[in-house]
């Protein structure tokens, strides 16, 4: 069982590789379409349902700069699959090359504990937590822009910033009263 390692391969010139991991395999398609439209950098998008990645592609797979876990708040399976996938990631990735993206967090039928547990997970791993809206094209564009910003830093294209530094600035924090009942 191989785990994904951040520095085991050479980076390519003027390109960035992003891996989108999503259990439902829906949002990642629209995100991928929007991501490859970026012109300044060659963005390669790899899609996966969960980790570990199949061994057959091991050789041809390029170096992954950013791993994005897309968690759908509407299903519990999504979160559990994400948690299971995290074990197959080399710890070197968590220094800024992992990002969590949550969809459908505004829905009223979502239990608040699920969002809290995602928050705590992201905070304990020191990773940024993004919220995205996947139903409208504007939401997809918005999410793409934010992902591209983080991707450019992790691929080394931004002069004065490294992935570790950015993760320190954008990491998710848990508010101290998260275990108390909220007012909605």
């Amino acid at each position, binding site marked *: 069982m191989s785990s994904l*390692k951040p*520095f*085991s391969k*050479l*980076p*390519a*010139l*003027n*390109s960035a590789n992003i891996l989108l991991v999503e259990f439902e395999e829906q949002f990642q398609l629209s995100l991928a379409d929007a991501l490859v439209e970026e012109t300044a950098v*060659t963005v390669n998008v790899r899609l996966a349902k969960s980790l570990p990645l199949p061994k057959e592609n091991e050789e041809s797979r390029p170096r992954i700069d950013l791993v994005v876990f897309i968690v759908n708040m509407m299903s519990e399976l999504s979160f559990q699959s994400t948690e299971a996938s995290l074990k197959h990631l*080399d*710890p*070197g990735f968590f220094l800024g090359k992992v990002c969590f993206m949550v969809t459908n967090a505004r829905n009223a039928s979502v239990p608040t504990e699920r969002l809290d547990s995602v928050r705590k997970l992201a905070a304990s791993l020191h990773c940024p937590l993004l919220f995205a809206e996947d139903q409208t094209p504007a939401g997809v564009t918005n999410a793409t822009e934010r992902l591209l910003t983080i991707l450019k830093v992790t*691929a*080394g*294209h*931004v*002069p*004065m910033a*490294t*992935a*570790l*530094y950015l993760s*320190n600035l954008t990491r998710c924090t848990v508010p101290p009263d998260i275990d108390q009942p909220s007012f909605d």
Partner: protein
Amino acid sequence: MEPPDTVGNLDHMVEAVALSGAPDSSTGQNDISPVDMLRIKQQMSNQCFEMKVQIHAGKSKRTCSTSEAERDLPEYVSELERVKTSHINRTLALHRMQMWHAIGDKLKQNDSEANSLKALGDRCMALCSHIKQLQKESRAFQDDITEIQKKRLEMKRQTYEKMKEMEELMSKKQHPDTEKYKAALEKGQENLEKHKKMTIMTQNVLRGILLACKVNWLDDPKLRDITMTLEDFPISD
């Protein structure tokens, strides 16, 4: 964390690739401008830096709990931020100096570009003085507005006070008058009731007498008048 040897090897490999210059690997563009090349060079140095950091991190290991590490983290981060901001400020200052030096040199040359620069500078001056004047005017207007608002507030306050006074007076007026005359009013009403009862009783008596005497009061006009007035008062008790 993977062994530092592989990352070290990779580091050397990347440098070798960079030196040999492999432009036909992924970009596929035949003419890369110098700006692009500088950009790509910066990217590669950034990536090499990251890998060096990884190697270095692998070397100096010390065992401590996560809570200790979390406590130390903010200090290091703020130190980093301080150094970065000072570096950026100095770079900006350097760029500013370079720019001004270049502009000064250009102006000394006195050719068409210098003339356009001078014209631009004059236009900026004119705009700035215009801005200053407009700002003065707007400040004067703002002061006027504040004065008027103060006056309005003062007037509102006075109106409010007057209304309160009026309310007070209105509520007071009811009381003193009624209090004084209440007693006299009650007495007067008692008297009225008494007299009313007496009159009714006398009229009943007179009516009884008339009926008992069996007098024909319809024919006699004086008697008829008296009997008519008897009917006005209601028969009570």
